[in-house]
């Protein structure tokens, strides 16, 4: 069986993601250790809360960011970022001041622009429409409901947009490029659709 490193940096609902990955047929290893990341076939980066706090948490683990960079960008291990784990792929986060992100996808993470009658945070089930065919994001076709709980979004380069959602504006609810996938919603809390997406990620050979 393939090993999945589920990154533990003190920010995220690890337990829920771990259970959902297990249900999807994987054997997740909860870790922040560089050697475990080097040995893992796939990487999942969860994240909840504020961009700056999550980036601080990642940076606080010795050698973690460098180990992730090597595994994902150099070795090409399939990567899935969830919620703030997707937002961290930005060049910069604009929540509570400016914070440098990982920059793997690029763009900025900024507050969702909503109208006077739209609620914020964007909490609940909304449709995610794939922008193109993709082995992992095909789980969302034609436009499945998935669970969101956030106020900030990633503005990624246009050619990396994997799926979009509407709430006040149309925003990228998923990004994809090469071996990288990021989702703004929570597959671990999206019942059957989320488990299907995780299964596809577990089997994906980019």
């Amino acid at each position, binding site marked *: 069986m393939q090993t999945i490193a589920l990154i533990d940096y003190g920010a995220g609902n690890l337990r829920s993601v771990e259970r959902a990955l297990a249900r999807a047929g994987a054997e997740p290893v909860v870790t922040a250790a560089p050697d475990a990341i080097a040995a893992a076939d796939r990487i999942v980066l969860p994240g909840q809360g504020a961009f700056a706090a999550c980036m601080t948490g990642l940076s606080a683990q010795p050698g973690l960011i460098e180990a992730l960079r090597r595994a994902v960008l150099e070795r090409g291990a399939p990567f899935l970022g969830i919620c703030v784990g997707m937002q961290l792929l930005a060049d910069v986060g604009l929540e509570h001041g400016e914070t440098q992100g990982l920059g793997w996808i690029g763009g900025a993470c900024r507050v969702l622009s909503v109208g006077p009658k739209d609620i914020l945070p964007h909490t609940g089930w909304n449709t995610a429409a794939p922008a193109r065919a993709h082995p992992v994001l095909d789980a969302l076709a034609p436009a499945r409901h998935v669970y969101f709980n956030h106020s900030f979004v990633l503005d990624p380069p246009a050619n990396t947009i994997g799926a979009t959602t509407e709430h006040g504006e149309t925003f990228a609810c998923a990004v994809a490029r090469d071996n990288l996938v990021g989702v703004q919603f929570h597959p671990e809390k999206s*019942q059957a659709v989320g488990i299907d997406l995780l299964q596809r990620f577990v089997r994906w050979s980019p």
Partner: protein
Amino acid sequence: MTLAARIIPCLDVREGRVVKGVNFVDLKDAGDPAEQAAIYDAQGADEICFLDIAASHENRGTLLDVVRRTADKCFTPLTVGGGVRTPEDVRALLLAGADKAAINTAAVRTPDVVDACAKAFGAQCIVVAIDAKQVSPDRWEIFTHGGSRETGIDAVRFAVEAVERGAGELLVTSIDRDGTRAGYDLALLSEISSRVKAPVIASGGAGTLQHLVEAITLGGASAALAASIFHFGTFSLAQAREALRDAGAPVRDVVGYAP
């Protein structure tokens, strides 16, 4: 496409068992919380709410264990409340598998706790639970301790302040209606939902499918919470979704789990 209206079964728990009272007393046993959660997960509940109504300090370990067992049974967002007083309480619940923590009495007694929790975990996982009783035609006041203790605080003003302090959601319960199955307090819901940006969950009084619809279409709520009508099988979640769809409210298309 639009954000769907949510239907939320609520598990009121005391000493590890699901109960539901009429006006917060006369509790009946409706079973094991983890089992109930698994049923609602399979039926496509949009979220599950889990309130520890006894919420004593001594019971904290038991509560976390029940939350853990419940969260392990479902892939549905879980809000947990009851006895949440500090950011440490929120952290313990989130680690046990909750997605959001609901703060009730502590938010009334020491409102700063809302700011502190929102700062630590983000507004999206902090729910402020408001138990309100109508005291005059245009005024509702907050009551704490299961509706038994009067505070004199204006519920609508308190709701606005809670959101300013960082609450990402409000769980608004009408004490007058809770357990009566006479319908939600729509006037209270409208007063609050028209004044805040954060989503409002309607609670207290659901007895028919029409009540669930009204909470969304007339009360301006983003979600309708109910306990007895689902626990005792009066209505199914599928029937509730159908009623909302018939009324023109945005509803989620539920996809069943693969066998």
